[in-house]
């Protein structure tokens, strides 16, 4: 049985992971903002076979609550060995271009709050000398593009931070996984038109749970995004500024 804390547990990707874990009888502690939604997910996971399910209403932007969340989760499950950080918002790029406080808020939600949680969790796991942290970044963090660079830069922060943390904590028995999903068909993206590159959250969850079980550092999901981003990252800047992506 694994003891897993999930931050942003109402996100579709996190919920899909949680179902897989519930089914194998793991203990889960869920954190998210929306209380009724959190409760219905906790009930569902209990019915599906989770050993124990705890939950806490939690806003990632209240940084002073981060340490308490880790402590609550650890107390409830009597230990902690996996942390999945999955909260986030899909930023409105157009608004962020003129509304600076909004842009900074988005960077906080998707970037610095993740840094804070990873730091606290990283220390705790490093002390016990084992465990895993999986964090949901995005392919959008691989290169800033005009269509979503506010969101993308927050995710770039997460990816770079995770990379450094991984290098440091690997020596202490802690495994850090950066997950980079492409287009995922979730309620967050319900208003967008879907094409061939879109996948269901269940597929992303399979990749995440596998990476946690079997090892894996940077997980593009689905895997073809590694090659798409490889190309996009290597377009020379003088060409890049002329195309619309």
């Amino acid at each position, binding site marked *: 049985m694994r003891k897993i804390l999930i931050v942003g547990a109402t996100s579709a990707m996190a919920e899909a992971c949680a179902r897989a874990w519930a089914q194998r009888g793991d203990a889960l502690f869920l954190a998210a903002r*929306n209380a*009724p*939604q959190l409760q*219905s*997910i906790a*009930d*569902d996971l209990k*019915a*599906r*076979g989770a050993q124990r399910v705890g939950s806490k209403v939690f806003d990632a932007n209240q940084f002073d609550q981060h340490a308490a969340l880790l402590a609550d989760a650890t107390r409830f499950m009597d230990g902690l060995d996996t942390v999945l950080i999955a909260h986030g918002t899909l930023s409105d790029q157009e608004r962020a271009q003129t509304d600076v406080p909004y842009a900074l808020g988005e960077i906080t939600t998707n970037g610095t709050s993740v840094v804070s949680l990873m730091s606290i969790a990283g220390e705790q796991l490093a002390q016990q000398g084992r465990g895993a942290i999986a964090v949901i970044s995005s392919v959008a963090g691989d290169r800033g593009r005009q269509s979503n660079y506010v969101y993308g830069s927050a995710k770039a922060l997460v990816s770079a931070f995770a990379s450094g943390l991984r290098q440091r904590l690997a020596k202490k028995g802690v495994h850090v996984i950066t997950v980079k999903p492409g287009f995922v068909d979730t*309620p967050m993206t*319900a*208003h*967008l*038109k*879907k094409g061939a590159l879109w996948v269901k959250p269940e597929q992303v969850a399979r990749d995440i749970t596998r990476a946690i079980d079997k090892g894996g550092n940077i997980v593009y999901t689905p895997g073809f995004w590694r090659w798409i981003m490889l190309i996009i990252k290597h377009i020379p800047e003088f060409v890049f500024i002329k195309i619309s992506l």
Partner: protein
Amino acid sequence: MSSQVFTSWGRVLREAHEVVGLPSRHQPLSLPASGASVLPFGNGRSYGDSNLNPGGALLQGGQLDRFIAFDPVTGLLRCEGGVLLSSILKLVVPQGWFLPVTPGTQFVTVGGAIANDVHGKNHHATGSFGNHVTQLELLRSDGSRRLCSLEQNADWFAATIGGLGLTGLITWAEVQLRRVANPYLDTESIRFHSLEEFFELSQASERDYEYTVSWIDCAFSGKRLGRGLFNRGNHAPAVLDVDAVPKGLPAGIATPSRRVPITPPVSLINTLSLKSFNTLYFNKQRQDVVRSLQHYRPFFYPLDALLEWNRIYGPKGFYQYQCVVPPERALSATRALLEAIAASGMGSFLAVLKQFGTPASRGMLSFPEPGTTLALDFPNQGPKLHALFAQLDRIVLDAGGRLYPAKDGRMSAAVFKAGYPRWTEFTSYVDPRFDSGFWRRVMENS
């Protein structure tokens, strides 16, 4: 709001619909600003247009897929409307429970099973799905929520069971499951050579067998008319003959993986393939009676092993025709139907015959009623098929029967109204923002 092409199981219609997501059962319905009508969409296993709303929007009911509570002591299960029957089975069979009623595919949602008040092979013993729903919540476009059961809002309960998704959204429901000792069934397959024999077998089996259903050959007229295979079974007892347990089966069928990979350019179903298939199928068992222990999946869901089998009918899709005729006229009407189909040369592989029993359906528009039900698939062949359907309609109506909306993509308003006299009463429960392709057609000129 995005738009997406939807098709139902028969694949005759493919229409773009506005899509409305349903992230949580606690939120009010988000309705299209355009004022367009909406319809819940479950898992698309209805055949015609009763689950489509061309020109309007579809509510993605399948997104409400959470369990709420399951009591392994009493077998009472509460879950959201979008939970698939397959997910329920995965959860409850290992704990000694089974669905009280299941249709021939496990890939339908609880909301869809209620909205069509689906029946299974045990109708004669236990009625249809709605008979086992203890309560449900109905969410209307005006934001109101109603708890419906036999005691509370009983009229809304009766309208919503078999209510074709038109009375509002079923956010969650509670279902009483039935006990089983293991995942297996004790089954028998018996060859019969005439319709008379079918009725005799049916009658003789009803008391001792929970499940009965027959495959019937409808490719041939004359002497071979009405021949078929009669299947009956019961859940296996706790003590099993280990030698009889099918080896390796549960694992092998754990995940249905074979798919029909592409849609062939023409239908693979034609008179020639039909006649040879039916002859082979009728003769597939060497003895007249074969007993076996079967896992529940091949017994209840033989077609689920081949995902997207509906594609073999080619790009024009196919229709299903399912009717029920009351007992007094069952033999003569069924014979007339089979004769008309054999004469047309357009029959189907999957002709299914079953006796419905006396447990009364709860829904105003529930399809099952005592009598004999016949269901067949027909590749879409345009006008000549519709001429055959018109002929079949007459036989059904003359016998006092009706057609199943879940399987229908073409019945006229007159045929619907003749079969479902409570339709007028039902209209007062239809949500003003809800509508479907089917409903517009059968409400024409009224």
